[in-house]
């Protein structure tokens, strides 16, 4: 079991053993849950193997969302005795997603990681939402990626629904008509199975405006 006396330190072969399991099933929820528990139990946030393994798995499949989630917890998860949480500062009585202190260098380098992943496969939801989580943790707005998101939405050529949604969120603050245009693109052409949701988003914009 997890007793301190049986396992005072990280068993040396454990991380490699987990990589063997990921080789068979790279998104296994239970293995990832256990890996997360190991990080908390042995304080492995800055252990070199953690980020190395995440990088290796993302290199093999940049769409491995479990690996992106693990990366977020390594970089921005609560540490030490702070209660664990899936979003920095989430909780019933706190402002969700806002960190007390974040290292701006880590924020910038993680945004670069997300950008590089998006350039490889712009329609991959994982790095787009990772980037949203990073900016949220740093209390920075989506606006700083307006130009980057725009790379994938040029005139009639749309390369990423996530870029369109990003722009809609940027435009929602003060440029509602343009936001409606973006949401309408998703509703009509690029993601119509979610029509009711996009309609709801458009309706909410009207209420804000």
């Amino acid at each position: 079991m997890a007793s301190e006396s049986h396992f005072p330190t990280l068993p040396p072969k454990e991380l490699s053993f987990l990589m063997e399991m990921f080789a068979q099933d790279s998104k296994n929820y239970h293995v990832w849950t256990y890996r997360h528990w190991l990080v908390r139990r042995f304080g492995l946030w800055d252990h070199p193997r953690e980020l190395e393994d995440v990088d290796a798995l993302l290199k093999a499949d940049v769409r491995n969302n479990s690996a992106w989630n693990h990366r977020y917890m390594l970089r921005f998860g609560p540490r030490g005795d702070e209660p664990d949480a899936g979003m920095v500062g989430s909780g019933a009585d706190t402002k969700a997603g806002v960190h007390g202190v974040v290292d701006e260098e880590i924020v910038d380098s993680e945004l670069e990681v997300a950008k590089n992943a998006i350039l490889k496969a712009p329609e991959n939801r994982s790095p787009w939402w990772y980037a949203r989580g990073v900016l949220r943790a740093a209390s920075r707005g989506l606006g700083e990626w307006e130009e980057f998101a725009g790379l994938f939405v040029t005139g009639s050529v749309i390369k990423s629904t996530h870029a369109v949604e990003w722009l809609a969120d940027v435009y929602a603050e003060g440029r509602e008509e343009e936001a409606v245009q973006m949401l309408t693109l998703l509703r009509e052409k690029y993601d119509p199975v979610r029509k009711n949701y996009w309609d709801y988003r458009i309706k909410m914009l009207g209420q804000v405006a």
Partner: protein
Amino acid sequence: MPFTVPGKNRRVRFPSQSAPIAREQKRPGKRPASSHPAGKMASQEVPRPGIPALFTQPPPIRDPLVTESIDLQDATLEKCLPFLKGIHSNQKGPFNACGVPALQRDDHVAYLYDALEDYPAGFVAMDASRPWMVYWALAGLSLLGEDITRVRQRVIETLRPMQNPTGGFGGGHGQTSHVAGAYAAVLSLAMVGGEEAFAVVDRQSMWRWLGRLKQADGGFRVCEGGEEDVRGAYCAMTIISLLDLPLALPPHAVARSAGMEKFTDELPNYLARCQTFEGGISGSPGVEAHGAYAFCALACLSIIGPPEETIGRCMDLPLLLSWLSARQNAPEGGFSGRTNKLVDGCYSHWVGGCWPLLQSAMDGKPQSDGPPPQTVGSLFSREGLDRYILCCCQSPHGGLRDKPGKSPDCYHTCYVLTGLSATQHRHYRTDSSASSSETFASAFSWKSRPIREDNVFERGDRLTAFHPLFVIPHQAAERMRLWYESEAF
């Protein structure tokens, strides 16, 4: 959530199904010749009339970079398309004007009755999930309108030995008590109903056992010495609310030393910490957002208080809506459990079941005993989900499945049907509760009404309405609660 039964397939009633399915699984790249003429991709075949292009064509944007996730997605799409188009040789009709096949009620009923019989040796791994096997079969049969009181005595005699004198139910006779087994056992007893069934549960020992599972951070372990996750919280609060157990923690509960007095103390905070940066909800804080855990967390919040208060306070709602909405993909129309994962019929319930809870939270405090005015209405495509269920999830010899190419099992049969039932009804809360409890007033105020407009299914495909929190018929939940309210603790 993948759920596989090891060993041989059932032989009792459907001997013909195991061989071809097993062969198909071993060679995932091979397509059945009957529906895929040589050299012709499924995406090029002409669909039945009445089906919108949205549900027969690949999505408009495709990245050039192919990875394992894309390979799996492509293979899934190829398998689903002939079913979505209504042209696969294994599909049974009749098809309606929307190009949707009828629910094969008789086949599914037969499959579920068979599931209540003996199992061959290959099912030994399910020996720790026996209350689940009972629950899945009874829930499925109830949805299909079967009178399950006829199996009451068998259910009572099956479950009684699984209860431990130290409280709770194990996954089988002589096994350690577990919240999942206890949840499935209590819900099964509620469904067969009657005093004799209700009297099986030893509430005193159940209360003390649950007290030992409550943790200092507000959550619950799934068993003594086991892991803590949102299943623990949802199953525990389901049991507590249905059995009318005292909300006060037992005298020697460990959580009392952390200053807690009630089962609900710090629970909302624990669940709030399970929301991730993606907006979805994970099994425990810090892990990846997942559809099944999202349902457990949202249903738990809706049991312990009115959802407009509990969900509103604990969750970033816009973020949650965005993630939940993104679980639906076209052309499949069904739900995936996580970002960049595949559609799976069981999420028809786990993800689909989150929607009524969020819609009710947005509708706000109920003002009457009828349905409140729609504030937002349905935020997902009911049509898409119903098409996926009826076209892709029905196995040719009865039972429902994850996706085409997979064998049916009780778990998927139960939760695919639960998802279909949920899309057929509007679920709302009223200002009057079946329970006299203040804490659980909201949980026992739910009603369901059939939706008559914009349906792609036929009248004959209609299923019984289920309680959106307890996942059994409304009356079963209310009768159980009222019986225990009238009994001394």
